[in-house]
């Protein structure tokens, strides 16, 4: 069973999003996604100040197996990126919801996360995808 924290929202492309107190949104990939991809060896994060659309590919996580795009779950501006992953991409495997975060953004509209799945829906989505 993969780890699916209840306080986060999830995208069909396996990103998670956390609404922070200051209105910004932190984004990473789910535990299930990191497990599927395997050992991370390279992470390419977006640039701070970059504006992205919802569903836009704006980061890349590369495992020893394959490269995989990461899609922004909401539209907005990138305000911070996790530079530490350049030297320790394995953090995405070890701590997908913590130290393995990819970028933080200021969403265009506060209600944007409503379209994402809650933990229960994502668990069901993973189960359906498995079959």
């Amino acid at each position, binding site marked *: 069973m993969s780890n699916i924290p209840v306080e986060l929202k999830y995208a069909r492309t396996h990103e998670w999003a956390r609404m922070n107190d200051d209105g910004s949104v932190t984004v990473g990939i789910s535990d299930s996604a990191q497990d599927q991809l*395997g050992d991370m060896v390279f992470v390419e994060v977006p640039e701070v100040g970059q504006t992205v659309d919802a569903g836009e590919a704006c980061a890349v996580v590369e495992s*020893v197996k394959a*490269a995989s795009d990461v899609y922004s779950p909401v539209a907005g501006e990138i305000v911070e990126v996790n530079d530490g992953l350049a030297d320790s991409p394995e953090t995405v495997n070890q701590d997908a919801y913590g130290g393995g975060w990819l970028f933080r953004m200021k969403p265009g509209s506060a209600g944007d996360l409503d379209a994402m799945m809650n933990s229960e829906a994502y668990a069901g989505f993973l189960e359906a995808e498995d079959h």
Partner: protein
Amino acid sequence: MGQKTPLYDEHVADGGKLVDFAGWDMPINYGSQIEEHNNVRNDAGMFDVSHMTVVDLTGDRTREFLRYLLANNVDRLKDSGKALYSCMLNEDGGVIDDLIVYFIRDDFFRMVVNAGTRDKDLAWLQQQSAAFDVAVTERTGLAMVAVQGPNARNKTLPLLSDAARAFAGDLKPFFGDFDGDWFIARTGYTGEDGFEIILPEDEAPAFWSKLRAAGVRPTGLGARDTLRLEAGMNLYGSDMDETVSPLESALGWTVAWEPADRDFIGRKAIEAQRKAGTQQKLVGLLLEDRGVLRNHQKVVAGDGEGEITSGSFSPTLQRAIAFARVPKETGETCQVDIRGKLLNARVVKPPFVRNGEAQIDL
């Protein structure tokens, strides 16, 4: 669902992630490919390679047949048990498959070919052997386990029968011998010491369990690929196929040109190519910038272009490495197109790693 090897249940029990490989359900890893890779470089790992095809060739004219069939020369095999790596070419000089052939007796050679090329290999062998009265027998009912790493032999030897242990410890590199239905060879596809063991399928699960208990770690096909890439070993279907010759695949060393009067399939074509000069070559690449090299990325070399045939992250070197087919004129550097950005790479001579040690300057 694909075909299952005799060790399928072991892979499930070991937590293997099973993927389709040439029609077989095979473990890509058992959790961490990088840990499995490093374990083979530092200790001992085991691979289920039962999907590969074992073919026994028998008949008085077997040596003569192989002299004609293979680009390498089986006359290099003088001592019983000695193995030879060779390409099997078509008339155009394209590579039908790469394989290992063991000389057992003049009327008995054993060949191990790739799983993905099984059908066409067998058809080709049947077709070509007819004129030599050589029997081509695919050996089914067998499993194959590769145990690789600096401690592989020491961990394996106590698990063998007394008869096998008597010779296996003294096998020289690239030699194999029989113990009843078991065949134990000091060969591999990782750049490390070890054994490749062919054994009856019903004995394979117990042997796998014993190896595991002896501290030999199950290792998936993912690590097998990064290990062979670091070791500078080609993969059929990625680095060469029927559209290219050995000369364009960094396999010129496996072509035995002498004696000049040995006629082998494809000789005329690659001799002409050697005279005219090849237009492309297969080289090693080390990425100087940050990123990961992948199969099929475009290589820019001067005015010409090439393509990565095998690319990955090297766990041992902690850098991206690759084989690439590039224009003959390519010098010491080139660039690789990774998602639209041209990144710098250095052209190097494989192997990248042998016996746990880096072979190139980083």
